[in-house]
């Protein structure tokens, strides 16, 4: 019992996730339904895939405000590159070519952020704030403010496809998302790179003294985040069969909100992939459930903002209580 209590006290996001699931199951018609849960996973996947990389970067003690813009750029590349002359004779395989171009673009932009953070020593917030403005400019210059549509319907078919698993037809994107959660979780908890991620964020000086190459390490995490953001751009554009220059606006805020809901510390050194997943899932469930209850979409903003601040207050209360407890034991 005590174990349960301390688990939920330390990781309140799980309690929150369960609470809202129960709430909407009781009060929102059609919420408690396999089909709907699949929808929620798809809705969560775009933000979720980015959040995986964002968690790594934030545990490093950095941040990335440019993910929304990078997502838009990669989506645009994904859609546009299918009709590039170099892929012309590939037929349907042009989609694969474009896919690689999009991921590459994401890694290049993420890598650029990481490289600047590494080499200039400028605060990551500022570096990526600049990138956020600049890359969005790049998207507009590239598209000339036009939306792009995929000519090959196979592209959107892939986005809508599902994989039969026993009696269920699970959407491909949902499966991709879950597999990525598992992979990045293993990366963070089981590999040397993952453990170093905590060291670099928790005590940079100690990491440097221990011979961890802090700069390249951060660079790699930005590269991973860029690649994952590119992937999110691909899945999002394939669901829509199109890319718009304004795609992904505000996504950085939602992603950071989800990761912080999951308990990752802005100062670095603390966080977990599974909890970030729970944070993003909470946001998706809130949006979905409120939609089911016919609540105007506007209220979601207010509720999310409120929850974000509430989590912060809760966290503060809990940690100060912990201190008091340890003083009194």
């Amino acid at each position, binding site marked *: 019992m005590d174990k349960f209590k301390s688990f939920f006290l330390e990781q309140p996001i799980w309690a929150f996730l369960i609470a809202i699931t129960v709430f909407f199951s009781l009060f929102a018609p059609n919420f408690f339904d396999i089909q709907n849960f699949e929808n929620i996973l798809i809705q969560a996947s775009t933000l979720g895939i980015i959040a995986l990389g964002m968690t790594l970067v934030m545990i490093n003690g950095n941040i990335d*405000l440019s993910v929304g813009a990078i997502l838009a750029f990669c989506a645009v590349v994904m859609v546009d590159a299918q009709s590039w002359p170099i892929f012309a004779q590939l037929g349907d395989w042009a989609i694969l070519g474009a896919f690689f171009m999009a991921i590459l673009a994401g890694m290049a932009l993420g890598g650029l952020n990481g490289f*600047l953070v*590494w*080499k*200039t*020593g*400028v*605060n990551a*917030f*500022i*570096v990526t*704030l*600049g*990138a*956020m*403005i*600049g*890359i*969005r*400019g*790049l998207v*507009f*210059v590239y598209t*000339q*403010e036009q939306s792009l549509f995929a000519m090959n319907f196979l592209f959107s078919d892939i986005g809508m496809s599902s994989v039969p698993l026993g009696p269920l037809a699970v959407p491909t994107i949902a499966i991709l998302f879950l597999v990525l959660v598992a992979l990045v979780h293993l990366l963070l908890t089981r590999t040397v790179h993952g453990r170093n991620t905590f060291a670099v964020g928790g005590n940079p000086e100690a990491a*440097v003294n221990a011979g961890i*190459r*802090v*700069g*390249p390490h*951060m660079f790699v995490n930005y590269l991973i985040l860029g690649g994952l953001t590119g992937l999110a751009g691909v899945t999002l554009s394939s669901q829509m069969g199109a890319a718009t220059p304004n795609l992904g*606006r*505000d996504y950085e*805020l939602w992603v*950071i*909100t989800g990761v*912080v809901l999951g308990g990752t510390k*802005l100062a670095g050194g603390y966080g977990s992939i599974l909890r970030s997943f729970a944070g993003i899932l909470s946001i998706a469930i809130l949006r979905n459930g409120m939609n089911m209850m016919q609540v*105007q*979409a*506007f*209220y*979601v*903003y*207010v*509720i*999310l*903002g*409120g*929850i*974000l*601040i509430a989590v*912060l*207050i809760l966290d*503060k209360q809990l940690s100060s209580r912990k201190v008091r407890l340890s003083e009194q034991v």
Partner: protein
Amino acid sequence: MPSSDDSSGELTSGTRRAAAQPPRASGPPEAGPDPVHQQSQEALHEAEEAVVAGGIGARFRALLGLDSPDFSWTKVLAKQGILLAFVIAMVGFSLASDRFLSFDNFSSVLRQSSIIGIMALGVTIVVISGNLDLSVGSMLSFATILVVDLHDKIGPAPAMAVALVAALACGAINGTLVGVLRLNSLIVTLGMLSAIQGFTLIYSGGQNADITNQSDTWFAFFGRGEIAGIAVPILLFLGLAIILEWVLHGTTFGRRIFAIGSKASAAEYSGINRVKTVFFSYLISAFCVWCAAVVMGSRVMGSQNTVGKGYELLVLAAIIVGGASLLGGSGKISKTVIGVLLLGFIQNGLLLLGFSYWTQWLVTWVVIIVAVWLDVGARRGRLLSPYA
């Protein structure tokens, strides 16, 4: 030892002294004869006299520290980099486009920059105190929608009053959460960004608002009026800049803002009321947003729900380009103004040169990073970071 008010001179005498003093030297510098020190003092005096006698050229040289004995370009870049960038940009654009250097053009750039600028003034104070305010964009949307929507319903003055109360209420919530509850300002104002955006949409029902009778209202004065040939938004911007510069440097409140931003716990140990000071910094920020909203509403005579979306980042960009540290404890209103103008003129110049509107964001990207990089690099004495 005569102390000089010339800050570049002081920097000089300081470093000279440290260099001149052997490790074993004892006693305060004024105790014994210290030839090198005296020499540098003389040099300083000469420099000062030259400034007085020599007019603008010498003044400029003194400002940049060109006459100081251990002059170095890194120091100049560190102190006045933003000013240099501004001058270079202005000269460059003037040479490249003959339409750039005109009163009308300048006036239109200033007018366009004034909304971002007014908001940036308030946020500068928050940033100097070591916090952030990301909610100003949403707040701008909210206040603008309120003032525009209520203008026809209850008249301009009451509408402005309601918008002011709403903006200050948002600021008070920020101030309470960050000041009283001591929560992380980045996350708090991020949450407020979302919440206020939600309130705006709920209030307007997702509809845009318009002022129907646009020609007959004195409300137009704030966005479209002129005094002595200068647009009111520009006057408001510069007026507020002067007032806030005075607040920062002439009042104890300003002293407290700097102290808290530099080291909050030391400030509290010194009897400075951190809660009150942080709270007021957010009220000032909210007040500036209200001013910006009045100008915005009056100029456009209508408003979308999302009119201020993304403004928080443009505001921060201008402040960062102006050289304020996001860690707090440093920053200047005047430099924020230059940051705002630099970005404004870059936008204008690029358009005049025939680049597409969006090119300016690419240039802003480069400017932000280069500006901060030079600043950080000059401070640590080397350009590249020490990370292996």
